């Protein structure tokens, strides 16, 4: 295995990990506030479609990403309305969102299929850092701005979650909404905001696929990434910093599943990320309490003031 091979693999793993990272960061916030959103796949595909359609129409990738974010927020707020306000089952609502999103994006995207985006999001070269041998071409060339923004965002979101009052509010709403409520924290508002942030980031993650990574629109182009995001959220122990290496690890798996096609049949390679997702969760189950991922205490439970 020569060095060039390694360099390009790491570089592509970073690029492929970006939508996973953004999506996972969003889901971490939603789940930290106590709301599971299984609609990530749906929000991502809607974001991918909206991003492509808007960027193609308006001729600028920035508008595309903005539209992707907006669509993600709308979808997520709908989920929040059903699960927080109407207290519907979170699993089923998320599944419905995924079914609906995949269907709607497929329906609307029919006419856009197969055409390349006129104005894809450009890649950047980080000045001077790109000059470093090996590491330079690995990490600082051929990435879009979203790679670095994603990592920065992970750090910011970690600080907010673990070092600020807002973070305490979010975590306490997820652990014990009744306690948070009695301390004067508005459970409903916190949950809406966190779920909406989740949608925003998932939307951008989807938009990245169609505006930057591919850049084109294909039906079902998220190919189960939304579900990998759900697994990564657990894998990262609901910690934004751990999401970084988790996302890039799975980015590498996705990339290798294309890369190794010369040696193994492509269909078997493509199942690798999904098999790994189960494996990783199973292995962390072996390790006993120290390794066990502990979910927020009230994850998945709707909050009704005065009950229980």
């Amino acid at each position, binding site marked *: 295995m020569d060095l060039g091979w390694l360099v390009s693999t790491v570089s592509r793993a970073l690029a492929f990990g970006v939508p996973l990272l953004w999506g996972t960061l969003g889901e971490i916030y939603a789940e930290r506030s106590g709301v599971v959103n*299984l609609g990530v796949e749906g929000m991502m595909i809607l974001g991918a479609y909206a991003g492509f359609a808007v960027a193609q129409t308006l001729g600028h990738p920035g508008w595309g990403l903005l539209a992707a974010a907006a669509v993600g927020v709308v979808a997520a707020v709908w989920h929040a309305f059903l699960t927080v306000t109407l207290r*519907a089952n979170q*699993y089923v*609502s998320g599944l419905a969102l995924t079914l609906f999103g995949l*269907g709607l994006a497929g329906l609307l995207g029919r006419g856009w299929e197969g055409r390349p985006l006129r104005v894809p999001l450009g890649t950047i070269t980080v000045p001077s850092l790109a000059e470093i041998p090996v590491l330079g071409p690995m990490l600082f060339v051929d990435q879009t701005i979203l790679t670095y923004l994603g990592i920065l965002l992970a750090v910011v979101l970690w600080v907010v979650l673990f070092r600020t009052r807002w973070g305490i509010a979010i975590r306490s709403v997820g652990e014990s909404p009744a306690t948070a409520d009695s301390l004067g924290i508005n459970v409903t508002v916190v949950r809406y905001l966190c779920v909406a942030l989740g949608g925003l980031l998932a939307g951008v993650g989807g938009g990245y696929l169609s505006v930057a990574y591919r850049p084109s629109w294909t039906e079902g182009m998220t190919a*189960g990434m939304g579900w990998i995001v759900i*697994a990564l959220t657990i894998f990262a122990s609901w910690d934004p910093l751990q999401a970084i290496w988790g996302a890039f690890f799975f980015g590498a798996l996705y990339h290798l599943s294309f890369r190794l096609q010369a040696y193994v049949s492509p269909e078997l390679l493509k199942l690798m990320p*999904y098999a790994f997702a189960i494996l990783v969760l199973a292995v962390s189950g072996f390790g006993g309490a120290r390794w066990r991922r502990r979910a927020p205490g009230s994850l998945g439970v709707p909050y009704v003031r005065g009950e229980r």
Partner: protein
Amino acid sequence: MKRIGPFIVERRLAPPRHVVFGVSVLAVVVALLLAALVFWAYGVSPWRAYAEIGRGTLGTVDGLSDIVRRAIPLILCGVGLTLAFRAQFWNIGAEGQLLAGAVAASGVALFVPVPDGLRLPLMFLAGFGAGALWAVIPALLRVKLQVNEVISTLMMNYIMAYIVEWLVHGPWKGPTMRGFAYTDMFPTAARLPLIAGTRVHWPTLGVGVVAALVVGLILSRTRLGYEVRVVGQSPDAARYAGISFTVVLSLAMVISGGLAALAGVGEVAGIHWRLRSPSHISMGYGYTAIIVAWLARGSPIAAILTALLFGLIFAAGDLMKTTLGLPFQITGVFNGLILFSLISSDLLMYWRIRWRRRGEAWT
């Protein structure tokens, strides 16, 4: 209890049956109205669309038989899911379990030397076994290693879909199929009989109806059914009572996955007569079955009816593609909308609105 104008809104703990039924019907109607908006946005008159659907599906023998053919896999998957959901085990993996059954049945049909008379029964048996095996893995992962079953079952759908792709592109690719990714055609002894003039493979339909009755009996009349319900409704009580989660969840998933797999056997042996790419074998029956089971409120018998409803939606999807030029993805939109309005209506069932009685205190 809340007062809104002259009405009193109060909580009720167990909604009576007619309310459940009424609210469910209402939810479906609301979803159809929302779908009308989608039609309208797509430049198709909703009136015309629904009229075409009504005429083309319910109005003709072909249409009716198409509904039933689509409902067969939905019944089998949906009945299995009611059992898993009663145990609060989120089996999202019916799609993969269905495909596992299709693979096992195709293997028996093409490669196992057995007398002709035994071939079909053996296909059903092997299918059930494969689906049960595939489904019991997430149950064990959850009990032994705390792996969330939503993720494991979902991931296993993707894994099984790629295994099928691999088989039809690679080792099982039929030598007589030239460039296409199919296996060879099944021998005649491995094909299910159809009701003349339709594509309804009646043996699978029979199996589905019997399965619904049997699962209904299991739930209401057996120890396993009782334990499934306790595990689902009150895990703590189940733990105190010494109920083994391993045994209960494993058995529930053996049945749930096995039945979904029988749906796969029916599709390859009754419709396609070969193994082909997963999107052709299933078109998302396993996912739609989640809605089937949910709309049936956990009752396997009711799942037969709700499966027919979604059979109608699939048949309508076919029809809209051919007569109105709408893409098939519209069924996904339909299904999502129905599921949305269904869960939002849940709240309605648990609240009762009535007139304030004369002289009743304002509270």
